[in-house]
């Protein structure tokens, strides 16, 4: 059974097929087999959160999931966050404006974890934002800007969903 398995994973709306060993991590499938290197691998044992992606619309650490376990799943990575025309997602725009990144290594994980937070809790308190961001380690010590960006993005996303409801 150490043989390879055929899997199909939809990443950002595009199907990707591959033949992988069972020990292939989802993070490596995304980066090396699908060639999407926006998802970063930091610690590779589930501590740093840099590799966070959405599977089936909820955040997971892609270094703690086997690629074979994502067979048939819908995955969203950092490359799928902006609109196809390049318009940044409100979270990305807020990160830009609040200088919520320095070296940028943790940023994909920060954005995907923040996306999951705001979907489950559109109006988080600062403490709730900090608790959610504790899932991702930033070594540039840039948390203050990140908290401000998530707070601002939450406000914008609430405003725009309010408009949609009103419209």
């Amino acid at each position, binding site marked *: *059974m*150490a043989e390879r*398995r055929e899997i199909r994973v939809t990443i950002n709306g595009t199907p990707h097929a591959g033949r992988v*060993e*069972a*020990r292939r*991590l989802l993070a*490596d499938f995304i980066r090396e087999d699908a060639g999407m290197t926006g998802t970063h691998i930091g610690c*590779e*044992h*589930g*501590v740093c*959160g840099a590799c*966070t992606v959405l*599977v089936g619309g*909820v*955040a*997971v*650490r892609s*270094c*703690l*999931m*086997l690629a*074979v*376990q994502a067979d048939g799943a819908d995955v969203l990575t950092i490359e799928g966050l902006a609109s196809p025309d390049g318009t940044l997602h409100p979270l990305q725009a807020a990160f830009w404006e609040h200088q919520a990144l320095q070296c940028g290594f943790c940023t994909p994980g920060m954005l995907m*974890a923040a996306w*999951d*937070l705001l979907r*489950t809790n559109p109006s988080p308190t600062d403490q709730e934002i*900090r*608790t*959610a961001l*504790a*899932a991702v380690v930033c070594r540039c010590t840039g948390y203050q800007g990140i908290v401000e960006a998530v707070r601002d993005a939450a406000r914008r996303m609430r405003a725009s969903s309010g408009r949609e409801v009103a419209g």
Partner: protein
Amino acid sequence: MKPAPFDYYDPRSLDEALGLLRRHGSEARVLAGGQSLVPRLNLRIMTPAVLVDLNHIPDLAYVEQTNGVVRFGAMARQRQIQFSDLVSATLPLLGEAIRFIGHLPTRTRGTIGGSLAFADPAAELPALVTALDGDLIVRGPSGERTLKPAEFFVGPFRTALAPDELLVEVRLPAMPRGSGAAFAEISLRENHFALVGVAAQLTIDGAGRCAVARLGVSGCPTPMRLRPVEEILERHGLGESVVAAAADRAAELVDPLEDVHASSAYRRRLTRTLVVRAVAAAAARARVVEHDRG
């Protein structure tokens, strides 16, 4: 690092999974949520020859209530439990404890059964199940058996599960009316591994006395239920000096682990502090419930 090669099986039924475990014995590891196992595979701390993945077995992720007992399928996700209305209504202690486990992205995958079967001394769920004296339903080649937490947890990262057995269900009594619960813990960083955690649930009777106290503590080789401390609260009430005396007794009773993060003596001190915090918070919540009812 990457995991060492292994043979991977994703059985579609419990019987098939049990058959695989019978065949491969201690060569096999069971993959539930993978949030503790996969890090160990990646670091090659564990190099099992066979992985039996439970994620494709249907109907193992339920959360249901029957006759005052809440039943959890072993593969119920921690995230699912965190957002469960049934859990927040019937087991607020669990609703609070679950937020201390890892982070939201790890709770997406992490399961109640996996956490219990992994038996990490720092873990929240073993202490909680011990406090509430839940039932652990185990299935093996000769059928099903029900274990109490004191039987199930036998040491750090060790349980009474045989290599060909699976934890399939956890049963917890719904919190009685007029009760309050709290989970308190201290870790070096937010939501990191706890040095010590304390689960407390108190039931107040019509006269305002503490009729039933439940206390479970982590940070020891196995989770401990502190029956003598519960008795102090049940006999002498929830006054400040009684709670302080109960916490002193708790610190005497526990036998905490010692590691690079904290000495045994420090964990003992934390136990005292956390018993005071958890009991005070649970008592305040129980009184609020009582007040609302009156």
